[in-house]
């Protein structure tokens, strides 16, 4: 972990730690909570062979779709890519390997990593085609599927507010996968509109304690304008 006083960095420096071939969790459900500035910096820096873990593939032209479109992503672990025809086409052309999980199980697999477990036992999906892909065990005369935790090398998360130590506050539905990924990845880079001095955030208002965060980057509101402009629904 980075020492508390050394976490506040420029976006270039923070993202430069990510090597080719890294597995990267990316926050966001659709546009809200997507760390657009960090993703765009990753696009600019040129890392390739990436495995991305995100609820969805964003929409064409924004967010992780830009990385997919640029051929920088080998593998996507996700829940639903129905709003991104480019991602579906890349999947169908077998240029992008896609692993899909039911949304709540994806969330829990990430949360399970964040809690430091091997995984959890669930009845979700029993009797469906996803069941056959999983190892099952009997406990108390019922069948349960083992869902292994999902860890990653990096997480890119978006917060509304932060402090220099990396305490984070999310806003509205921009929370979604961000607090889970912040706990699950080895190295966590957070972007926030405002990065305050430690002590300026109320204790109870902090959603992600700084212990999980490696780097904090301050961004302007403008860096998420792309998500707002393109958002179609």
């Amino acid at each position, binding site marked *: 972990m980075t020492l508390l006083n050394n976490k506040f960095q420029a976006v270039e420096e923070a993202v430069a730690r990510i090597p080719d071939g890294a597995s990267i969790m990316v926050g966001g459900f659709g546009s809200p909570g997507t760390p657009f500035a960090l993703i765009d910096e990753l696009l600019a820096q040129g890392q390739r062979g990436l495995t991305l873990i995100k609820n969805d593939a964003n929409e064409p032209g924004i967010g992780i779709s830009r990385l997919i479109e640029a051929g920088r992503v080998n593998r996507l672990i996700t829940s639903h890519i129905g709003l991104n025809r480019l991602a579906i086409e890349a999947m169908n052309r077998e240029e992008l390997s896609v692993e899909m999980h039911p949304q*709540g199980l994806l969330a829990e697999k990430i949360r399970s990593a964040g809690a430091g477990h091997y995984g959890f036992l669930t009845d979700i999906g029993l*009797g469906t085609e*996803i069941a056959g892909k999983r190892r099952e065990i009997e406990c108390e005369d019922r069948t349960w599927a083992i869902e292994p935790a999902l860890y990653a090398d990096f997480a890119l998360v978006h917060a509304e507010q932060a402090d220099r130590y990396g305490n984070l506050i999310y*806003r509205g539905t921009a929370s979604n996968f961000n607090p*889970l990924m912040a706990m699950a990845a080895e190295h966590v880079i957070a972007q926030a509109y405002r990065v305050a001095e430690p002590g300026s955030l109320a204790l109870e208002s902090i959603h992600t304690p700084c212990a999980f965060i490696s780097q904090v980057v301050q961004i302007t509101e403008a860096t998420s304008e792309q998500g707002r402009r393109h958002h179609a*629904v």
Partner: protein
Amino acid sequence: MPSDQERILVRAAGEVIPGQIVNLGIGLPTRLSHYLSEEMGVLVHSENGVLGCRPRTTGEAPDFDMIDSGGAYIATRPGASVFDSAMSFAMIRRSRVDITFMGAFEVDELGNLANWKIPGKFSPGIGGAMELAQKVKKLVILCSHNDKHGNPKILSRCRLPLTAPACVSRIITDKAVMDVTPEGLAVVDIAEGLGVVELRAATEAELIIDESQLGRF
């Protein structure tokens, strides 16, 4: 005269008890939110992490951090809260959502539901549908009775990959309201002006119909 979809939505709104927690699937079910007044004291859950969402009123500026699971910019009702995806699905898996409305490709006599994948054609991922279908206390399907080619969607057995087995409580289509019972699909209401013979002809599943009890909608 209301469209088929409007008739389905009006009928569906009657399923919601004031004070309940409701989830609305993408598509037609989402539009049900327009039929749930603030006075009902209902909170609408959206699985991306909000409880208590409502459609924006005309002219209400979008809040770019506030969407529902379909991606529409939303507003909130008194008593609303926001939370992360783990909390959102904990709520679903613990059956804290009282009722959910979903679309369907196929539903069958056993209450099996298929609404997420057409092998070789359509497989964008299941999203939150599997957990909602499996765990919400009451699952009501809102769909057209037949597909655009006129083929029945209410089947003896689903042929597409299941969203969840034996999960549906009630089906509301443009032609009928049907309950999944241990004996099979029991017709509760039939569409105004539709005959029982026509309904059976438009349906693959066996239908249990007691004409003396049949409502109209």
